[in-house]
């Protein structure tokens, strides 16, 4: 509730974005760039695009997300390219599908630079203040009829089941689902009582909702980094009939770099040749001086201190109610759960160029301050360390994202979207990815256009959102390459080829940029074709080339494409026997090499994708009355009614829906079709 009923200030916008973290920034930029009058709220303008935890962007599979955000027209990739201080391509000794970029950021610069981008966006208004209430209306029948008119797919079984082999650029059907909602958003109200009328609102509240920070016995009711928590909005969200739950996460201490003895640490340098995140960044512009990270280890002494003080850890003492992530355990969790390990890795990472603060990666904790200091000081290099900021655990309100469609709109409230940690995810990149999609789809909603829904076979973003909205996530969700079943196709190196078209279709990518990708694609295909149809025999040149690279001699003629499958052969070193090759940019030859070398594997996944697409394209009508479907098991009926899956494919991924239920559903839909 607002403090002042007397404040009669009313402003009018298209979109209100609540929160200016990584999700909020992408959402607000997408909306305003699509021509919508947008306002973004933050509890502190100084905390725009704040990195309250680790000082890096990217990493295994997260780097993929950043590339995809960039391909779609988001900002994260460009911003880290401007503000990184070290960059590394991870997993280069592994296959191309798991190569992943990770850059250390100058945190302050990252935040400042993003704020600058926001400030320069003509349609965007930045407002410091806490949103504490939603203004909504119940949807009348008339509205519903209106949605019907807006929706292209008038519900007709034949149409819904028609097999469209060319997958739609944007989902053809989701829009019609919106008419199932009972409410719609018309505005938001701030704590100071001002009203901001809007057609859509996007909740990007991160870890701020009813946040509580724990450092041993010391408990503060603040958001991350001691910032003001948002204590009012949860109530209003619940009043709309949305269920909230509590998650927990944590962060390690920051050390004063002057108190670290670097002579005892091993240095971790960046790559010699830096590859930018953004497809639009000039690669030469990122070749600059880099700063090192440092590696050290915990030891038995560290573990002894932790074990002796477990009773003072809020988690082990039972004070924390929220569910924490298994993949990012606190140091006390590591010591308890992996008691056979006598040491754990610790990375010391600079927080920026203009600060001495150093992030202690690998040792997040919620132990009390005195224990923290004792524990950190057992680590080689940290014997005399001084803690600038204590490690802490944070608990916050969030939702089970099953209440959302894949468009990230709430099923029950039209115009209300959600993104980021509020949806139960974790990580800057996951947040930004959702922010971008929520922003795009809020815009699509207002512009009466079909929402953009990426599927699991075309992007990590699709996997992320589908997992969030269909699976029972019991802990903050983190992206991993193993969650992408078609990962050989979803490489960070081809994100532009996969997604630029959607960015262009939506309106965030310029025609010029889109055409570049189309040209690139043409060049790739024609070069692959040329290599498949250029044959070499056991000539003197070829044999001496093969000998020079330590490859077995040829006995019969083969295509250059076949030769490229040999591990020793590269597109580059093959030049000596391929004299007539066209001159092509390395971004093209890289794709040619990957696509040909791994063709067998890639083709196998493409086949699986065909099957997947078939299931996804079998749509379930929005008004399907599951009570009318005979023979569904009770549990499945409940799940389906609650979830309202869009397609048979999605229904089959719901927990509690067995394959037999899916068969029953298929037969039922087909029955309707034959009627």
């Amino acid at each position, binding site marked *: 509730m607002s403090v002042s009923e007397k404040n009669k200030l009313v402003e009018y916008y298209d979109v209100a974005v609540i929160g200016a973290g990584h999700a909020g920034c992408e959402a607000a930029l997408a909306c305003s760039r699509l021509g919508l009058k947008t306002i973004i709220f933050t509890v502190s303008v100084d905390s725009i695009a704040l990195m309250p935890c680790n000082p890096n962007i990217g990493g*295994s*599979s997260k780097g993929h997300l950043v590339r995809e955000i960039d391909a779609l027209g988001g900002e994260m990739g460009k911003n880290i390219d401007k503000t990184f201080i070290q960059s590394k391509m*991870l*997993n280069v*000794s*592994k*296959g191309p*599908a*798991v190569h992943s970029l990770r850059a250390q950021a100058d945190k302050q610069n990252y935040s400042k630079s993003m704020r600058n981008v926001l400030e320069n966006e003509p349609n965007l208004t930045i407002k410091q203040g806490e949103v504490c209430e939603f203004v909504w209306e119940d949807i009348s029948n008339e509205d519903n009829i209106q949605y019907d008119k807006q929706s292209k797919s008038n519900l007709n079984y034949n149409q819904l089941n028609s097999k469209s082999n060319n997958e739609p650029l944007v989902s053809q059907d989701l829009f019609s689902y919106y008419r199932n909602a009972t409410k719609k958003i018309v505005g938001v109200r701030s704590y100071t009582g001002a009203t901001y009328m809007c057609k859509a609102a996007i909740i990007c509240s991160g870890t701020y909702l009813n946040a509580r920070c724990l450092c041993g016995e010391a408990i503060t009711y603040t958001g991350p980094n001691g910032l003001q928590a948002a204590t009012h909005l949860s109530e209003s969200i619940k009043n709309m009939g949305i269920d909230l739950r509590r998650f927990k996460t944590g962060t390690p201490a920051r050390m004063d770099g002057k108190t670290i003895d670097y002579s005892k640490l091993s240095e971790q340098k960046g790559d010699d040749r830096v590859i930018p995140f953004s497809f639009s960044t000039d690669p030469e512009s990122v070749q600059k001086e880099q700063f090192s990270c440092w590696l050290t280890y915990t030891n038995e002494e560290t573990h002894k201190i932790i074990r002796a003080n477990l009773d003072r850890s809020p988690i082990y003492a039972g004070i924390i109610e929220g569910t924490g992530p298994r993949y990012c355990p606190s140091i006390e969790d590591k010591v308890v759960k992996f008691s056979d390990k006598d040491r754990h*890795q610790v*990375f010391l990472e600079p927080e920026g160029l203009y600060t001495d603060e150093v992030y202690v990666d690998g040792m997040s904790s919620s132990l009390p301050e005195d224990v923290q200091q004792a524990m950190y000081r057992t680590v080689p290099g940290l014997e005399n360390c001084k803690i600038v900021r204590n490690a802490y655990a944070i608990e916050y309100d969030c939702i089970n994202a099953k209440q959302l469609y894949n468009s990230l709109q709430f099923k029950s409230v039209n115009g209300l979207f959600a993104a980021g940690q509020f949806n139960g995810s974790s990580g800057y990149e996951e947040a930004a990815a959702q922010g971008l999609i929520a922003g795009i789809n809020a815009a699509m909603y207002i512009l009466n256009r079909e929402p953009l829904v990426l599927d699991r076979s075309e992007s990590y973003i699709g996997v992320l959102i589908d997992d969030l909205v269909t699976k029972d996530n019991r802990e903050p969700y983190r992206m*991993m*390459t*193993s969650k992408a079943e078609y*990962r*050989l196709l979803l490489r960070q190196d081809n994100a532009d080829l996969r997604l630029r078209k959607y960015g262009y279709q939506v309106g965030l990518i310029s025609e010029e940029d889109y055409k570049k990708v189309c040209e690139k694609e043409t060049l790739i295909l024609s070069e692959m074709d040329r290599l498949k149809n250029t044959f070499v025999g056991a000539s003197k040149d070829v044999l001496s080339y093969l000998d020079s690279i330590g490859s077995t001699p040829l006995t019969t003629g083969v295509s250059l494409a076949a030769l490229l499958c040999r*591990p020793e052969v590269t597109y580059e070193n093959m030049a000596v026997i391929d004299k007539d090759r066209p001159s092509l940019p390395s971004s093209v030859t890289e794709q040619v090499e990957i696509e040909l070398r*791994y063709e067998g*594997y890639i083709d196998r*996944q493409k086949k699986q994708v065909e*099957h997947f697409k*078939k*299931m996804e394209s*079998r749509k379930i009508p929005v008004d399907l009355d599951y009570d009318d479907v*005979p*023979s*569904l*098991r009770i549990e499945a009926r409940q799940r389906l009614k609650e979830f309202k899956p869009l397609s*048979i494919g999605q229904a*089959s991924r719901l927990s509690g829906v*067995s*394959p*037999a*239920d*899916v*068969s*029953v559903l*298929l*037969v*039922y839909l*087909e*029955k309707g*079709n*034959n*009627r």
Partner: protein
Amino acid sequence: MYSDDTIAAIATALSESGIGIIRVSGSMAKEITNKIFVGPSGKRIIDKMQTHTIKYGYVISLDSTEDSFRDNIIDECLVSYMQGPKSFTGEDVVEINCHGGVFVVKKVLSEVLRAGARLADPGEFSKRAFLNGRMDLTEAEAVMDIISSKSDSSLKASINQLSGNISKKIKELREDILYNIAFIESALDDPEHISLDGYDEKITGLLEKWIYEIDKLIRSNDSGKFLREGINTVLLGKPNAGKSSVMNLLLGQDRAIVTDIAGTTRDTLEEYIKFGNIGLNLVDTAGIRDTENTVEQIGVDRARKAAENADLIIYVVDSTDLNNNITKGYIDLMNSFSNKKGIVLLNKVDLGKNFEKIDFPYPVIEFSTVTGEGFDILKDTITDMFYKGLGSSSDEIVITNIRHRNLLEDCKKSLVNVQQSVSMGMQEDFYSIDLMDAYSSLGKIIGEEIEDDLATEIFSKFCLGK
């Protein structure tokens, strides 16, 4: 779930009489059948076939050419072709009508599968018929009821057919594989903490071990094994009981040296024969007796060894030379192989039948290599022994077993893919993709990864009952 690959299955109840139909459905139905069927003159004719017509010809083995087809005939058949959508499933359908007989029908099916079809899950034809709009509303209602009420029990039934040991073994393998997937994935996720250095060597050893164990499981699946490889059969008996003559009769030619001097066969002789509908890997052995002759003794040892590896032991007894001592010798011999299936041939009955009835622990057949007496009874007895219980009355056991075997082979294929990736120098992230497939194939056997194809097993009543 719903896919459009080409499937095949035996569409009639398996029994020794009447006609057996193999149904092949899907876009590749014609192409696949064409690989294993020739017209009476040996020419491939299926590809040019008109819809809704029938052709006469031979099902031949996949490896056979048009020239060598005569040596590779599996059965004489009628093949009908129905182009979709005017077919039972609404897809292209080929039906192969063959001469009943469990072995032949299964052999034809196995050739169809080898030629590229996937074994249909029970009821999959009916389901496809539905999804292609080939069944009416009442049937749809009934089918939905059946899927939901029977899917669980059918899954359980299928799992129950696995012996405790096999499912335990599969669980162990699964755990082992999963552990390794998890290891690779965690190293990909966090390359700075977990290293895959030296992992190639480790996985190479593991793959060998896993494939060895999967192979063992595949072999342990009797019906599958007999279908593919024939029954390992050993002829055992005292010297000069006529084992080699029996073998020659079965072979239809004089392969073993036959003399009336006891102990002529000094080594084991091995032949593969088609014995009616049944494939036998027949091993003739040296006669079992105490001997001073070293060479002959080696033969005797080998005979015993062959018997230990056999699926079936045929004891050849000279009916003209029976006394208490000899009878006791045979019974001792049989007792020492009491875990094997056995048949007793009372040979040389053409020389008279004045012997007393003896209580052997196995079926006894009066036999003559001269007149051929007992030959048909022997054939029937073997068929009964190996295919009864798998045939007519309980189709599901056969299907399930083939299903299990196919999944094991899928699993093996995935593991072999990993081996190839390792030897081709592919990076570790490629391993885990195929390992995941191997894991999920095994999961389907024990029902731990419940996919809808398992649930649709229930359709079998509609399918096979048609």
